[in-house]
Protein backbone atom coordinates (compact mmCIF):
# COMPACT_ATOMS: atom_id res chain seq x y z
CA UNK A 1 0.00 0.00 0.00
CA UNK A 2 1.52 3.27 -1.09
CA UNK A 3 2.08 6.31 1.09
CA UNK A 4 -0.78 8.14 -0.66
CA UNK A 5 -3.27 5.47 0.42
CA UNK A 6 -1.95 5.60 3.99
CA UNK A 7 -2.36 9.38 3.95
CA UNK A 8 -5.91 9.12 2.61
CA UNK A 9 -6.78 6.48 5.23
CA UNK A 10 -5.29 8.67 7.94
CA UNK A 11 -7.28 11.72 6.81
CA UNK A 12 -10.50 9.65 6.68
CA UNK A 13 -9.82 8.25 10.18
CA UNK A 14 -9.08 11.68 11.68
CA UNK A 15 -12.08 13.22 9.90
CA UNK A 16 -14.39 10.44 11.10
CA UNK A 17 -13.13 10.78 14.66
CA UNK A 18 -13.70 14.56 14.63
CA UNK A 19 -17.22 14.00 13.24
CA UNK A 20 -17.88 11.35 15.89
CA UNK A 21 -16.63 13.71 18.63
CA UNK A 22 -18.83 16.47 17.25
CA UNK A 23 -21.93 14.21 17.41
CA UNK A 24 -21.10 13.17 20.99
CA UNK A 25 -20.64 16.81 21.99
CA UNK A 26 -23.96 17.83 20.40
CA UNK A 27 -25.76 14.89 21.99
CA UNK A 28 -24.41 15.90 25.40
CA UNK A 29 -25.58 19.44 24.72
CA UNK A 30 -29.11 18.19 24.00
CA UNK A 31 -29.23 16.54 27.43
CA UNK A 32 -27.74 19.67 29.00
CA UNK A 33 -30.52 21.70 27.37
CA UNK A 34 -33.11 19.18 28.56
CA UNK A 35 -31.80 19.60 32.10
CA UNK A 36 -32.02 23.38 31.62
CA UNK A 37 -35.71 23.06 30.73
CA UNK A 38 -36.26 20.90 33.81
CA UNK A 39 -34.74 23.56 36.08
CA UNK A 40 -37.18 26.15 34.75
CA UNK A 41 -40.15 23.76 34.82
CA UNK A 42 -39.36 22.90 38.43
CA UNK A 43 -39.57 26.61 39.27
CA UNK A 44 -42.93 26.80 37.52
CA UNK A 45 -44.19 23.75 39.48
CA UNK A 46 -42.98 25.30 42.74
CA UNK A 47 -44.84 28.52 42.04
CA UNK A 48 -48.17 27.01 40.90
CA UNK A 49 -49.38 25.92 44.42
CA UNK A 50 -48.83 29.49 45.67
CA UNK A 51 -50.77 30.96 42.75
CA UNK A 52 -53.59 28.45 43.24
CA UNK A 53 -53.81 29.18 46.98
CA UNK A 54 -54.21 32.90 46.29
CA UNK A 55 -56.60 32.36 43.36
CA UNK A 56 -58.90 30.01 45.34
CA UNK A 57 -59.73 32.85 47.72
CA UNK A 58 -61.26 34.93 44.94
CA UNK A 59 -62.07 32.71 41.95
CA UNK A 60 -64.98 30.63 43.24
CA UNK A 61 -66.41 30.24 39.72
CA UNK A 62 -63.22 28.80 38.25
CA UNK A 63 -62.98 25.66 40.40
CA UNK A 64 -62.88 23.44 37.29
CA UNK A 65 -59.90 25.24 35.86
CA UNK A 66 -58.08 25.23 39.20
CA UNK A 67 -58.67 21.48 39.57
CA UNK A 68 -57.40 20.83 36.05
CA UNK A 69 -54.25 22.85 36.75
CA UNK A 70 -53.69 20.91 39.99
CA UNK A 71 -54.04 17.61 38.14
CA UNK A 72 -51.77 18.72 35.26
CA UNK A 73 -49.17 20.05 37.66
CA UNK A 74 -49.10 16.72 39.55
CA UNK A 75 -48.68 14.78 36.30
CA UNK A 76 -46.02 17.18 34.96
CA UNK A 77 -44.12 17.09 38.23
CA UNK A 78 -43.68 13.33 37.94
CA UNK A 79 -42.19 13.76 34.45
CA UNK A 80 -39.48 16.22 35.50
CA UNK A 81 -36.08 14.64 34.91
CA UNK A 82 -37.41 12.30 32.21
CA UNK A 83 -34.52 11.35 29.92
CA UNK A 84 -36.20 8.60 27.83
CA UNK A 85 -36.45 10.34 24.47
CA UNK A 86 -39.63 8.39 23.60
CA UNK A 87 -41.35 9.89 26.63
CA UNK A 88 -39.91 13.39 26.35
CA UNK A 89 -42.51 14.34 23.71
CA UNK A 90 -45.31 13.34 26.11
CA UNK A 91 -43.69 15.42 28.86
CA UNK A 92 -43.53 18.45 26.57
CA UNK A 93 -47.21 17.99 25.68
CA UNK A 94 -48.21 17.96 29.37
CA UNK A 95 -46.13 21.07 30.07
CA UNK A 96 -47.59 22.85 27.06
CA UNK A 97 -51.12 22.06 28.28
CA UNK A 98 -50.18 23.24 31.80
CA UNK A 99 -48.75 26.47 30.37
CA UNK A 100 -51.95 27.07 28.39
CA UNK A 101 -54.15 26.59 31.45
CA UNK A 102 -51.96 28.81 33.59
CA UNK A 103 -52.14 31.47 30.88
CA UNK A 104 -55.93 31.16 30.95
CA UNK A 105 -55.92 31.52 34.73
CA UNK A 106 -53.80 34.67 34.56
CA UNK A 107 -56.13 36.11 31.91
CA UNK A 108 -59.26 35.29 33.96
CA UNK A 109 -57.62 36.85 37.04
CA UNK A 110 -57.94 40.18 35.25
CA UNK A 111 -61.73 39.92 35.70
CA UNK A 112 -61.38 39.89 39.50
CA UNK A 113 -60.47 43.41 40.70
CA UNK A 114 -59.69 42.19 44.25
CA UNK A 115 -57.31 39.57 42.90
CA UNK A 116 -55.76 42.02 40.46
CA UNK A 117 -54.84 44.39 43.27
CA UNK A 118 -53.73 41.67 45.69
CA UNK A 119 -50.05 42.21 46.54
CA UNK A 120 -48.96 38.55 46.69
CA UNK A 121 -50.86 37.84 43.44
CA UNK A 122 -49.13 40.73 41.67
CA UNK A 123 -45.76 39.39 42.84
CA UNK A 124 -46.74 35.83 41.82
CA UNK A 125 -47.79 37.05 38.36
CA UNK A 126 -44.50 38.89 37.95
CA UNK A 127 -42.50 35.84 38.97
CA UNK A 128 -44.60 33.63 36.74
CA UNK A 129 -43.97 35.88 33.73
CA UNK A 130 -40.27 35.77 34.43
CA UNK A 131 -40.30 31.97 34.70
CA UNK A 132 -42.24 31.72 31.44
CA UNK A 133 -39.59 33.89 29.76
CA UNK A 134 -36.91 31.56 31.10
CA UNK A 135 -38.85 28.47 29.96
CA UNK A 136 -39.10 29.98 26.48
CA UNK A 137 -35.34 30.65 26.55
CA UNK A 138 -34.63 27.08 27.72
CA UNK A 139 -36.84 25.75 24.90
CA UNK A 140 -34.93 27.83 22.38
CA UNK A 141 -31.63 26.44 23.68
CA UNK A 142 -33.03 22.90 23.54
CA UNK A 143 -34.40 23.30 20.01
CA UNK A 144 -31.12 24.85 18.81
CA UNK A 145 -29.24 21.88 20.32
CA UNK A 146 -31.61 19.34 18.73
CA UNK A 147 -31.31 21.13 15.38
CA UNK A 148 -27.53 21.09 15.59
CA UNK A 149 -27.50 17.34 16.47
CA UNK A 150 -29.96 16.54 13.69
CA UNK A 151 -27.74 18.30 11.13
CA UNK A 152 -24.62 16.47 12.33
CA UNK A 153 -26.38 13.09 12.24
CA UNK A 154 -28.09 13.62 8.88
CA UNK A 155 -24.97 14.76 7.02
CA UNK A 156 -22.54 12.08 5.77
CA UNK A 157 -20.73 10.36 7.54
CA UNK A 158 -23.15 11.14 10.38
CA UNK A 159 -25.61 8.31 9.56
CA UNK A 160 -22.72 5.81 9.83
CA UNK A 161 -21.40 7.21 13.10
CA UNK A 162 -24.58 8.03 15.03
CA UNK A 163 -24.93 4.50 16.47
CA UNK A 164 -21.32 4.58 17.67
CA UNK A 165 -21.91 8.00 19.26
CA UNK A 166 -24.90 6.68 21.20
CA UNK A 167 -27.63 8.44 19.19
CA UNK A 168 -30.25 5.71 18.76
CA UNK A 169 -33.36 7.80 18.48
CA UNK A 170 -33.58 11.53 17.79
CA UNK A 171 -34.91 13.81 20.52
CA UNK A 172 -38.13 15.60 19.56
CA UNK A 173 -38.32 19.37 19.06
CA UNK A 174 -40.25 21.30 21.70
CA UNK A 175 -43.18 22.61 19.67
CA UNK A 176 -45.81 25.13 20.55
CA UNK A 177 -49.40 24.02 20.96
CA UNK A 178 -51.67 23.99 17.90
CA UNK A 179 -53.87 26.61 19.57
CA UNK A 180 -50.92 29.02 19.81
CA UNK A 181 -50.30 28.72 16.07
CA UNK A 182 -53.87 29.54 15.08
CA UNK A 183 -54.61 33.10 13.96
CA UNK A 184 -55.98 35.29 16.75
CA UNK A 185 -59.71 36.06 16.54
CA UNK A 186 -59.87 39.61 17.89
CA UNK A 187 -63.67 39.32 18.14
CA UNK A 188 -63.34 36.98 21.09
CA UNK A 189 -61.55 39.61 23.11
CA UNK A 190 -63.42 42.77 22.14
Amino acid sequence: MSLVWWAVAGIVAVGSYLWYASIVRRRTRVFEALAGIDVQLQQRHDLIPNVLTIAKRFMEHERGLLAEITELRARAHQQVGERDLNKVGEKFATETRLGEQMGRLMMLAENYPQLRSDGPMIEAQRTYSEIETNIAAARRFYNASVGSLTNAVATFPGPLLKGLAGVREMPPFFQTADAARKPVDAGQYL
Partner: protein
Amino acid sequence: MPGFDPRAPHNDGVAPPLIQGLVGSGIERFSMLVGGFFRGVNERILLVLWFGGGAGLALLVLVASIAQTPGWEGVARGLFAGLFLGLLYLAGFGSLFVGYRRAARAETGGTPAPTSALELQLAATLRELDALRGDISKQIKQRSITRIPIGLLGGIGVWLLRQRADDPPGLGGLVLLLLIGAIAGERWAAHALERRYRRRYKDTVLPQLAGDLGQLTYRETSAERVADIGADRMLPEYDRIDADDQIIGTHAGLPIEIIEVKLKRRVNKKTRVVFDGLLVGIELPRRLSGTTLIATDQGMWERFKAEWRGGEMASVQLEHHEFEQRYDVHSTDQVEARALLTPAFMERFVALAAKSHFALPGAIADGNRLVVAMPKRPGMRDLFEPPAYWQPSGGRALTALQADIRTVLDFAETIMRLDFWAQGRLADAQRSVRQAT
Protein backbone atom coordinates in the same frame (compact mmCIF):
# COMPACT_ATOMS: atom_id res chain seq x y z
CA MET B 1 -23.86 92.79 45.36
CA PRO B 2 -25.24 93.34 41.83
CA GLY B 3 -28.00 90.97 40.71
CA PHE B 4 -27.46 88.52 37.85
CA ASP B 5 -29.00 89.76 34.61
CA PRO B 6 -29.37 86.92 32.08
CA ARG B 7 -29.66 89.37 29.19
CA ALA B 8 -26.37 91.08 29.97
CA PRO B 9 -23.26 89.83 28.15
CA HIS B 10 -21.23 87.82 30.66
CA ASN B 11 -17.85 88.15 28.98
CA ASP B 12 -17.35 91.84 29.63
CA GLY B 13 -13.64 92.42 30.11
CA VAL B 14 -12.84 88.72 29.73
CA ALA B 15 -10.81 88.24 26.57
CA PRO B 16 -9.11 85.15 25.18
CA PRO B 17 -5.30 84.90 25.41
CA LEU B 18 -3.54 87.40 23.12
CA ILE B 19 -2.30 85.17 20.26
CA GLN B 20 -5.29 82.83 20.35
CA GLY B 21 -7.53 85.89 20.31
CA LEU B 22 -5.72 87.42 17.32
CA VAL B 23 -5.94 84.19 15.27
CA GLY B 24 -9.56 83.67 16.32
CA SER B 25 -10.64 87.22 15.49
CA GLY B 26 -8.83 87.03 12.10
CA ILE B 27 -10.79 83.89 11.16
CA GLU B 28 -13.98 85.44 12.51
CA ARG B 29 -13.51 88.66 10.47
CA PHE B 30 -12.79 86.71 7.27
CA SER B 31 -15.83 84.56 7.90
CA MET B 32 -17.98 87.67 8.49
CA LEU B 33 -16.70 89.22 5.26
CA VAL B 34 -17.55 86.15 3.19
CA GLY B 35 -20.87 85.77 5.03
CA GLY B 36 -21.74 89.41 4.36
CA PHE B 37 -21.08 88.91 0.65
CA PHE B 38 -23.29 85.83 0.44
CA ARG B 39 -26.08 87.46 2.44
CA GLY B 40 -25.89 90.84 0.74
CA VAL B 41 -25.76 89.86 -2.93
CA ASN B 42 -28.92 88.94 -4.82
CA GLU B 43 -29.53 85.18 -5.08
CA ARG B 44 -29.78 85.24 -8.89
CA ILE B 45 -26.42 86.98 -9.19
CA LEU B 46 -24.93 84.38 -6.83
CA LEU B 47 -26.31 81.56 -8.98
CA VAL B 48 -24.84 83.18 -12.10
CA LEU B 49 -21.51 83.55 -10.28
CA TRP B 50 -21.72 79.93 -9.16
CA PHE B 51 -22.49 78.18 -12.45
CA GLY B 52 -21.18 80.89 -14.77
CA GLY B 53 -17.94 81.09 -12.80
CA GLY B 54 -17.46 77.33 -13.04
CA ALA B 55 -18.14 77.29 -16.80
CA GLY B 56 -16.00 80.39 -17.35
CA LEU B 57 -13.08 78.91 -15.43
CA ALA B 58 -13.27 75.67 -17.43
CA LEU B 59 -13.37 77.64 -20.70
CA LEU B 60 -10.48 79.87 -19.61
CA VAL B 61 -8.29 76.88 -18.81
CA LEU B 62 -9.19 75.26 -22.15
CA VAL B 63 -8.29 78.40 -24.12
CA ALA B 64 -5.06 78.87 -22.17
CA SER B 65 -4.09 75.24 -22.74
CA ILE B 66 -4.73 75.48 -26.51
CA ALA B 67 -2.74 78.72 -26.65
CA GLN B 68 0.16 77.06 -24.82
CA THR B 69 0.08 73.75 -26.70
CA PRO B 70 -1.74 74.00 -30.02
CA GLY B 71 -3.22 70.76 -31.37
CA TRP B 72 -5.11 67.79 -29.97
CA GLU B 73 -2.81 67.42 -26.99
CA GLY B 74 -3.60 70.96 -25.83
CA VAL B 75 -7.35 70.42 -26.35
CA ALA B 76 -7.33 67.17 -24.37
CA ARG B 77 -5.22 68.63 -21.57
CA GLY B 78 -7.36 71.79 -21.47
CA LEU B 79 -10.60 69.81 -21.36
CA PHE B 80 -9.40 67.59 -18.55
CA ALA B 81 -7.86 70.39 -16.42
CA GLY B 82 -10.71 72.79 -17.17
CA LEU B 83 -13.35 70.27 -16.21
CA PHE B 84 -11.49 69.40 -13.02
CA LEU B 85 -10.98 73.01 -11.93
CA GLY B 86 -14.52 73.97 -12.97
CA LEU B 87 -16.01 71.19 -10.85
CA LEU B 88 -13.72 72.09 -7.94
CA TYR B 89 -14.93 75.69 -8.15
CA LEU B 90 -18.58 74.58 -8.32
CA ALA B 91 -18.17 72.38 -5.25
CA GLY B 92 -16.31 75.02 -3.20
CA PHE B 93 -18.58 77.93 -4.11
CA GLY B 94 -21.64 75.72 -3.70
CA SER B 95 -20.74 74.58 -0.21
CA LEU B 96 -20.07 78.17 0.91
CA PHE B 97 -23.27 79.39 -0.73
CA VAL B 98 -25.46 76.68 0.77
CA GLY B 99 -23.75 76.95 4.18
CA TYR B 100 -24.16 80.70 4.54
CA ARG B 101 -27.71 80.68 3.19
CA ARG B 102 -28.66 77.97 5.69
CA ALA B 103 -27.03 79.93 8.53
CA ALA B 104 -28.87 83.08 7.48
CA ARG B 105 -32.21 81.22 7.42
CA ALA B 106 -31.52 79.73 10.86
CA GLU B 107 -30.73 83.20 12.22
CA THR B 108 -33.87 84.82 10.82
CA GLY B 109 -36.29 81.90 11.24
CA GLY B 110 -35.03 80.40 14.51
CA THR B 111 -36.54 81.34 17.81
CA PRO B 112 -34.15 82.57 20.50
CA ALA B 113 -33.03 79.79 22.82
CA PRO B 114 -35.26 79.68 25.92
CA THR B 115 -32.37 79.97 28.32
CA SER B 116 -33.64 82.72 30.58
CA ALA B 117 -35.36 80.39 33.04
CA LEU B 118 -32.34 78.11 33.09
CA GLU B 119 -30.00 81.03 33.64
CA LEU B 120 -32.12 82.45 36.42
CA GLN B 121 -32.21 79.04 38.07
CA LEU B 122 -28.42 78.83 37.88
CA ALA B 123 -27.87 82.53 38.61
CA ALA B 124 -25.79 82.02 41.76
CA THR B 125 -23.54 79.47 40.07
CA LEU B 126 -23.09 81.59 36.94
CA ARG B 127 -22.23 84.62 39.07
CA GLU B 128 -19.57 82.59 40.84
CA LEU B 129 -18.24 81.33 37.50
CA ASP B 130 -18.16 84.82 36.04
CA ALA B 131 -16.06 85.96 38.98
CA LEU B 132 -13.75 83.01 38.39
CA ARG B 133 -13.54 83.85 34.66
CA GLY B 134 -12.44 87.39 35.46
CA ASP B 135 -9.89 86.12 37.96
CA ILE B 136 -8.51 83.53 35.52
CA SER B 137 -8.27 86.11 32.73
CA LYS B 138 -6.21 88.37 35.01
CA GLN B 139 -3.95 85.52 36.11
CA ILE B 140 -3.35 84.42 32.51
CA LYS B 141 -2.41 87.98 31.54
CA GLN B 142 -0.01 88.20 34.48
CA ARG B 143 1.58 84.86 33.65
CA SER B 144 1.78 85.75 29.97
CA ILE B 145 3.96 88.77 30.80
CA THR B 146 6.78 86.43 31.80
CA ARG B 147 5.97 83.23 29.92
CA ILE B 148 5.48 84.61 26.39
CA PRO B 149 8.92 86.33 26.48
CA ILE B 150 10.42 83.06 27.78
CA GLY B 151 8.80 81.29 24.81
CA LEU B 152 10.20 83.94 22.45
CA LEU B 153 13.67 83.51 23.97
CA GLY B 154 13.30 79.75 23.51
CA GLY B 155 12.47 80.34 19.83
CA ILE B 156 15.56 82.56 19.43
CA GLY B 157 17.67 79.93 21.25
CA VAL B 158 16.55 77.17 18.88
CA TRP B 159 17.20 79.46 15.89
CA LEU B 160 20.74 80.21 17.15
CA LEU B 161 21.46 76.52 17.80
CA ARG B 162 20.24 75.65 14.30
CA GLN B 163 22.73 78.17 12.82
CA ARG B 164 25.50 75.60 13.36
CA ALA B 165 23.65 72.97 11.30
CA ASP B 166 24.36 72.26 7.59
CA ASP B 167 21.19 74.04 6.48
CA PRO B 168 20.67 76.99 8.91
CA PRO B 169 17.20 78.61 8.96
CA GLY B 170 16.92 82.18 7.60
CA LEU B 171 14.82 85.14 8.69
CA GLY B 172 11.60 83.34 7.77
CA GLY B 173 12.65 80.46 10.04
CA LEU B 174 13.26 82.92 12.88
CA VAL B 175 9.78 84.41 12.48
CA LEU B 176 8.26 80.94 12.51
CA LEU B 177 10.24 79.88 15.62
CA LEU B 178 9.27 83.12 17.40
CA LEU B 179 5.61 82.45 16.62
CA ILE B 180 5.86 78.87 17.88
CA GLY B 181 7.68 80.07 21.03
CA ALA B 182 5.05 82.73 21.73
CA ILE B 183 2.18 80.27 21.30
CA ALA B 184 3.95 77.73 23.54
CA GLY B 185 4.52 80.43 26.18
CA GLU B 186 0.88 81.44 26.05
CA ARG B 187 -0.33 77.86 26.32
CA TRP B 188 2.01 77.40 29.29
CA ALA B 189 0.41 80.42 30.94
CA ALA B 190 -3.18 79.42 30.23
CA HIS B 191 -3.40 75.63 30.14
CA ALA B 192 -3.63 74.78 33.86
CA LEU B 193 -5.97 77.69 34.60
CA GLU B 194 -8.25 76.81 31.69
CA ARG B 195 -8.44 73.24 32.93
CA ARG B 196 -9.30 74.47 36.41
CA TYR B 197 -12.12 76.61 35.03
CA ARG B 198 -13.51 73.81 32.89
CA ARG B 199 -13.47 71.39 35.82
CA ARG B 200 -15.16 73.96 38.06
CA TYR B 201 -17.78 74.65 35.39
CA LYS B 202 -18.56 70.96 34.97
CA ASP B 203 -18.67 70.30 38.71
CA THR B 204 -21.03 73.16 39.46
CA VAL B 205 -23.27 73.48 36.38
CA LEU B 206 -23.70 69.93 35.10
CA PRO B 207 -25.09 68.40 38.35
CA GLN B 208 -27.79 71.08 38.37
CA LEU B 209 -28.62 70.59 34.68
CA ALA B 210 -28.80 66.82 35.19
CA GLY B 211 -30.90 67.21 38.34
CA ASP B 212 -33.29 69.37 36.36
CA LEU B 213 -34.07 66.35 34.14
CA GLY B 214 -34.83 63.84 36.91
CA GLN B 215 -33.19 62.01 39.77
CA LEU B 216 -29.82 62.40 38.15
CA THR B 217 -26.51 64.03 38.79
CA TYR B 218 -23.21 64.58 37.06
CA ARG B 219 -19.90 63.62 38.60
CA GLU B 220 -16.29 63.22 37.65
CA THR B 221 -15.44 59.60 37.09
CA SER B 222 -12.24 57.65 36.66
CA ALA B 223 -10.77 54.96 34.46
CA GLU B 224 -11.26 52.45 37.30
CA ARG B 225 -15.03 52.85 37.07
CA VAL B 226 -14.95 51.60 33.46
CA ALA B 227 -13.23 48.43 34.68
CA ASP B 228 -15.59 48.17 37.67
CA ILE B 229 -18.69 47.98 35.52
CA GLY B 230 -17.12 45.17 33.50
CA ALA B 231 -16.90 47.13 30.25
CA ASP B 232 -13.24 46.12 29.79
CA ARG B 233 -14.35 42.75 28.51
CA MET B 234 -16.18 44.17 25.49
CA LEU B 235 -13.93 47.13 24.69
CA PRO B 236 -10.90 46.88 22.39
CA GLU B 237 -7.38 46.67 23.88
CA TYR B 238 -6.01 50.05 24.95
CA ASP B 239 -3.02 51.72 26.64
CA ARG B 240 -4.66 54.97 27.72
CA ILE B 241 -8.16 55.84 28.83
CA ASP B 242 -9.84 59.24 29.08
CA ALA B 243 -13.06 59.02 31.08
CA ASP B 244 -14.08 61.92 33.28
CA ASP B 245 -17.77 62.57 32.59
CA GLN B 246 -20.48 60.49 34.20
CA ILE B 247 -24.24 60.99 34.49
CA ILE B 248 -25.60 58.79 37.25
CA GLY B 249 -28.91 58.35 39.02
CA THR B 250 -32.33 56.79 38.55
CA HIS B 251 -34.36 57.06 35.40
CA ALA B 252 -37.85 55.53 35.09
CA GLY B 253 -37.21 53.82 38.42
CA LEU B 254 -34.10 52.06 37.16
CA PRO B 255 -30.54 52.85 38.26
CA ILE B 256 -28.54 54.13 35.29
CA GLU B 257 -25.07 55.48 34.64
CA ILE B 258 -23.61 56.95 31.48
CA ILE B 259 -19.88 57.46 30.98
CA GLU B 260 -18.17 59.15 28.06
CA VAL B 261 -15.01 57.21 27.24
CA LYS B 262 -12.10 57.59 24.85
CA LEU B 263 -9.60 54.74 24.55
CA LYS B 264 -6.23 55.12 22.88
CA ARG B 265 -3.64 52.60 21.84
CA ARG B 266 -0.10 52.98 20.58
CA VAL B 267 0.41 50.96 17.39
CA ASN B 268 3.55 51.32 15.22
CA LYS B 269 4.68 54.47 17.13
CA LYS B 270 1.32 56.14 16.48
CA THR B 271 -1.39 56.70 19.07
CA ARG B 272 -4.79 55.77 17.71
CA VAL B 273 -8.24 56.20 19.19
CA VAL B 274 -9.61 52.65 19.34
CA PHE B 275 -12.92 53.60 20.97
CA ASP B 276 -14.67 56.92 21.40
CA GLY B 277 -18.21 56.75 22.65
CA LEU B 278 -20.58 56.16 25.52
CA LEU B 279 -20.98 53.39 28.04
CA VAL B 280 -24.57 53.15 29.20
CA GLY B 281 -25.19 50.96 32.25
CA ILE B 282 -28.71 50.01 33.33
CA GLU B 283 -29.81 47.85 36.23
CA LEU B 284 -32.46 45.59 34.68
CA PRO B 285 -35.50 44.63 36.77
CA ARG B 286 -34.63 40.95 36.30
CA ARG B 287 -33.18 38.08 38.28
CA LEU B 288 -30.19 37.25 36.13
CA SER B 289 -26.98 35.85 37.58
CA GLY B 290 -24.80 34.84 34.62
CA THR B 291 -22.60 36.88 32.32
CA THR B 292 -23.40 37.38 28.65
CA LEU B 293 -21.11 39.18 26.26
CA ILE B 294 -22.27 40.59 22.92
CA ALA B 295 -19.27 41.63 20.84
CA THR B 296 -19.07 42.61 17.20
CA ASP B 297 -18.26 39.65 14.95
CA GLN B 298 -14.55 38.85 15.32
CA GLY B 299 -14.39 36.52 12.33
CA MET B 300 -14.08 32.75 12.04
CA TRP B 301 -10.43 32.54 13.17
CA GLU B 302 -11.00 34.50 16.39
CA ARG B 303 -14.13 32.43 17.10
CA PHE B 304 -12.17 29.22 16.60
CA LYS B 305 -9.39 30.44 18.93
CA ALA B 306 -11.92 31.39 21.62
CA GLU B 307 -13.61 27.97 21.35
CA TRP B 308 -10.23 26.23 21.50
CA ARG B 309 -9.17 28.16 24.61
CA GLY B 310 -12.47 27.28 26.27
CA GLY B 311 -13.01 29.16 29.52
CA GLU B 312 -16.18 29.64 31.48
CA MET B 313 -17.98 31.48 28.65
CA ALA B 314 -19.33 29.35 25.81
CA SER B 315 -20.48 30.53 22.41
CA VAL B 316 -24.25 31.06 22.09
CA GLN B 317 -25.83 30.32 18.71
CA LEU B 318 -28.96 32.37 18.15
CA GLU B 319 -31.80 32.20 15.66
CA HIS B 320 -31.72 35.82 14.48
CA HIS B 321 -29.80 35.69 11.20
CA GLU B 322 -28.77 39.37 11.01
CA PHE B 323 -27.80 39.46 14.69
CA GLU B 324 -25.72 36.30 14.27
CA GLN B 325 -23.92 37.82 11.28
CA ARG B 326 -23.00 40.98 13.18
CA TYR B 327 -22.28 39.71 16.67
CA ASP B 328 -20.54 36.94 18.56
CA VAL B 329 -22.34 36.07 21.77
CA HIS B 330 -20.66 34.27 24.66
CA SER B 331 -22.23 33.44 27.98
CA THR B 332 -21.72 31.55 31.20
CA ASP B 333 -25.36 30.42 31.01
CA GLN B 334 -26.98 29.37 27.73
CA VAL B 335 -30.53 29.70 29.06
CA GLU B 336 -30.00 33.11 30.66
CA ALA B 337 -28.35 34.40 27.52
CA ARG B 338 -31.50 33.50 25.60
CA ALA B 339 -33.75 34.86 28.34
CA LEU B 340 -32.01 38.20 27.84
CA LEU B 341 -31.59 37.98 24.08
CA THR B 342 -35.20 37.44 23.13
CA PRO B 343 -36.08 37.81 19.42
CA ALA B 344 -37.44 41.30 20.18
CA PHE B 345 -34.22 42.31 21.98
CA MET B 346 -32.10 41.15 19.05
CA GLU B 347 -34.30 42.95 16.54
CA ARG B 348 -34.05 46.22 18.48
CA PHE B 349 -30.32 45.80 19.11
CA VAL B 350 -29.66 45.44 15.39
CA ALA B 351 -31.82 48.50 14.71
CA LEU B 352 -29.99 50.52 17.39
CA ALA B 353 -26.99 51.40 15.22
CA ALA B 354 -29.15 52.18 12.21
CA LYS B 355 -31.37 54.62 14.10
CA SER B 356 -28.91 56.41 16.40
CA HIS B 357 -25.90 58.71 16.01
CA PHE B 358 -23.73 55.82 17.08
CA ALA B 359 -22.05 52.95 15.28
CA LEU B 360 -22.43 49.19 15.89
CA PRO B 361 -22.85 48.68 19.64
CA GLY B 362 -21.48 45.98 21.94
CA ALA B 363 -22.90 44.94 25.29
CA ILE B 364 -22.25 42.94 28.41
CA ALA B 365 -24.84 41.74 30.90
CA ASP B 366 -23.31 40.82 34.23
CA GLY B 367 -26.12 39.71 36.50
CA ASN B 368 -28.84 42.33 36.22
CA ARG B 369 -26.49 45.05 35.03
CA LEU B 370 -26.58 45.63 31.28
CA VAL B 371 -23.79 47.83 29.92
CA VAL B 372 -23.96 48.89 26.27
CA ALA B 373 -20.95 50.44 24.55
CA MET B 374 -21.84 52.77 21.70
CA PRO B 375 -18.98 54.08 19.57
CA LYS B 376 -19.59 57.56 18.16
CA ARG B 377 -19.71 57.97 14.42
CA PRO B 378 -16.72 59.83 12.90
CA GLY B 379 -16.97 63.59 13.26
CA MET B 380 -19.27 63.53 16.29
CA ARG B 381 -18.07 66.03 18.90
CA ASP B 382 -17.26 65.38 22.57
CA LEU B 383 -20.22 65.72 24.91
CA PHE B 384 -20.48 67.75 28.14
CA GLU B 385 -17.82 70.24 27.03
CA PRO B 386 -18.12 73.60 28.84
CA PRO B 387 -17.45 76.93 27.10
CA ALA B 388 -13.97 78.50 27.17
CA TYR B 389 -13.40 81.00 29.98
CA TRP B 390 -13.60 83.98 27.60
CA GLN B 391 -17.02 82.88 26.33
CA PRO B 392 -20.29 83.57 28.21
CA SER B 393 -20.89 81.02 30.98
CA GLY B 394 -24.65 81.03 30.34
CA GLY B 395 -26.74 81.40 27.19
CA ARG B 396 -26.15 78.92 24.39
CA ALA B 397 -23.55 77.00 26.40
CA LEU B 398 -26.17 76.01 28.98
CA THR B 399 -28.69 75.00 26.31
CA ALA B 400 -26.05 72.93 24.51
CA LEU B 401 -25.02 71.14 27.71
CA GLN B 402 -28.60 70.40 28.63
CA ALA B 403 -29.15 69.11 25.07
CA ASP B 404 -26.16 66.79 25.58
CA ILE B 405 -27.70 65.37 28.75
CA ARG B 406 -31.05 64.96 27.01
CA THR B 407 -29.34 63.14 24.13
CA VAL B 408 -27.70 60.60 26.43
CA LEU B 409 -30.93 60.16 28.40
CA ASP B 410 -32.88 59.49 25.20
CA PHE B 411 -30.22 57.02 24.37
CA ALA B 412 -30.53 55.36 27.80
CA GLU B 413 -34.28 55.06 27.19
CA THR B 414 -33.57 53.36 23.87
CA ILE B 415 -31.39 50.86 25.74
CA MET B 416 -34.19 50.33 28.28
CA ARG B 417 -36.60 49.54 25.45
CA LEU B 418 -34.36 46.65 24.41
CA ASP B 419 -35.49 44.63 27.40
CA PHE B 420 -39.16 43.75 27.83
CA TRP B 421 -39.08 44.23 31.62
CA ALA B 422 -37.21 47.51 31.58
CA GLN B 423 -39.54 48.71 28.83
CA GLY B 424 -42.47 48.01 31.15
CA ARG B 425 -40.91 50.16 33.86
CA LEU B 426 -40.27 52.95 31.37
CA ALA B 427 -43.87 52.82 30.15
CA ASP B 428 -45.13 52.95 33.78
CA ALA B 429 -42.92 55.96 34.52
CA GLN B 430 -44.06 57.79 31.38
CA ARG B 431 -47.72 57.04 32.23
CA SER B 432 -47.22 58.47 35.74
CA VAL B 433 -45.67 61.64 34.29
CA ARG B 434 -48.60 62.03 31.87
CA GLN B 435 -51.13 61.55 34.66
CA ALA B 436 -49.30 64.02 36.89
CA THR B 437 -49.26 66.68 34.19
